[in-house]
């Protein structure tokens, strides 16, 4: 753990070398997500509601997903550049060092510029929490917390899975973007609005709905089923098969040379 913080400190220092660019990137990130926010805002300005969900309710859902994604991305985006590590042969160098591969990949890049997205999620949450009409009991606060934690787990797992797949394809797979960036983009609305098929895909195959739709229904009082609040914890289990796949890929890894 101490080693991890040491790596983090070095990365912070190196990113601060290009200060202007760093702040522009943060500002850019901030605006990028805000364009999505305004997209939602103007849609509700016109339609008032979607499937009975109000703007403030959707905002809760949106900010929980974004918060989870930005936290996972900040720490696990190192896996995003993983195909590059394989192609360039840098992975061989990592394997030679007497430290765990995961730790080294985690610390190969930490994108603090993603803090813009995080900030924006926090701001949206601040707007949504008082206006959405939820009575914030301890249980509801915990539900929101488990949503974020569960979401972080799912996105981290997907990043690891992506890295695992690239052992076999060498190239990154663009299709994985549908699962990560796609669920972030379309996850701003409760998944039920896309219909039954999409909802069950994201319940049983990729457990996005487990931290997004079900606990959200409990949170806004559409469902009395308290167990929905605990569903996000199942998402943490999703890391296991993804990690297993990554480990399997690693054990089969033959260097790409150069």
């Amino acid at each position, binding site marked *: 753990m101490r080693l991890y913080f040491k790596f983090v400190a070095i990365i912070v220092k190196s990113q601060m070398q*290009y200060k*202007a*660019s*760093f*702040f*522009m*990137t943060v*500002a*850019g*990130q901030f*605006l*990028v997500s805000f*364009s*999505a926010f*305004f*997209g939602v805002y*103007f*849609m509700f*300005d*016109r*339609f*008032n*509601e*979607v*499937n*009975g969900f109000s703007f403030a309710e959707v905002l809760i859902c949106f900010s929980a997903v974004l918060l989870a994604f930005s936290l996972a991305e900040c720490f696990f985006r190192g896996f995003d550049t993983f195909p590059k590590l394989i192609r360039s042969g840098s992975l061989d160098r990592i394997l030679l060092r007497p430290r765990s591969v995961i730790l080294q990949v985690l610390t190969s890049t930490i994108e603090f510029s993603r803090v813009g997205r995080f900030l924006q999620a926090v701001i949206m949450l601040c707007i949504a929490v008082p206006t959405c009409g939820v009575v914030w009991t301890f249980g509801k606060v915990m539900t929101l917390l488990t949503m974020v934690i569960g979401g972080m787990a799912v996105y981290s797992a997907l990043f690891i899975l992506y890295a695992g797949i690239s052992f076999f394809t060498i*190239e990154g*797979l*663009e*299709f994985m*973007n*549908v699962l990560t960036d*796609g669920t972030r983009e*379309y996850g701003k*609305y409760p998944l039920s*609005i*896309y*219909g039954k098929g*999409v909802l069950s895909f994201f319940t049983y195959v990729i457990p996005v709905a487990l931290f997004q739709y079900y606990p959200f229904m409990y949170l806004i009082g559409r469902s009395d089923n308290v167990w929905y609040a605990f569903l996000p914890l199942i998402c943490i289990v999703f890391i296991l098969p993804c990690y297993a796949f990554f480990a399997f890929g690693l054990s089969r890894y033959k260097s790409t040379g150069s």
Partner: protein
Amino acid sequence: MKQYLSFFRIRFVAGLQYRAAALAGIVTQFAWGFLSVLMYKAFYESNPDAFPMEFSQLVTYLWLQQAFLALFMPWLFEQDIFDSVVSGNVAYELCRPCDTYNMWFARNAATRLSNTVLRCMPILIVTAFLPAPFRMTLPAGWLNAALFLVSMILGFLVQVSISLIIYISAFYTVSAQGIKMLSITLTEFLSGAVIPIPFFPEAVQKVFNALPFASIQNTPFLIYVGYTGGAEAAIAVALQAVWLVVIIVAGRLLIGHAMKKVVVQGG
């Protein structure tokens, strides 16, 4: 002229080599397209009266957006141009006996076009045969089809000329990461890539339509689906042409100014 054409050709042919990537891209774009259609369907069913156009028009708009994504995507930049400014290799480019602006223009245009050629046909063909709510329709009429073609070309060139401004700005800021991101966001939002411009409130629409970004994908797509037609469409196309000239002139002035004081990095 010949040298720029050959730059164009080299890039174009190189782009055509990435067929597996294109296939993966097509699959991704189908997924995005379907999810968008489903999302708008939910809004449509919640409040059909507030919908600014026919639902089938919107579906066609969304599929056009996916099919011609590569043509208009604001995030397509050639990283090697930015890298060459940081590393100093841009000096070689500047030494070439041809105009840097035209050369970069040809490269960016070719990359976009080759990506589009690979991706657009499967999407257009498949979506034309999809069942009812997902089906893409034909253009609204012969006149609209003709105007659509002209408008597509103009919109494409406007997007390339905006990308060029970002390339040139690298001479001023060295690391272009930040400005790149800002431009991508603004272009996406103001061009109607996040939500189509007719979905904004009236007052906001007026502002957006006056900006150059509406000339990119908004104008041709709305002509295709028949949302704009007749004189209104002709004016929109004329506006595209005006913006194209203005942005190209601005880009040329910027690069001219940058060339006078360019500092080449590295050694």
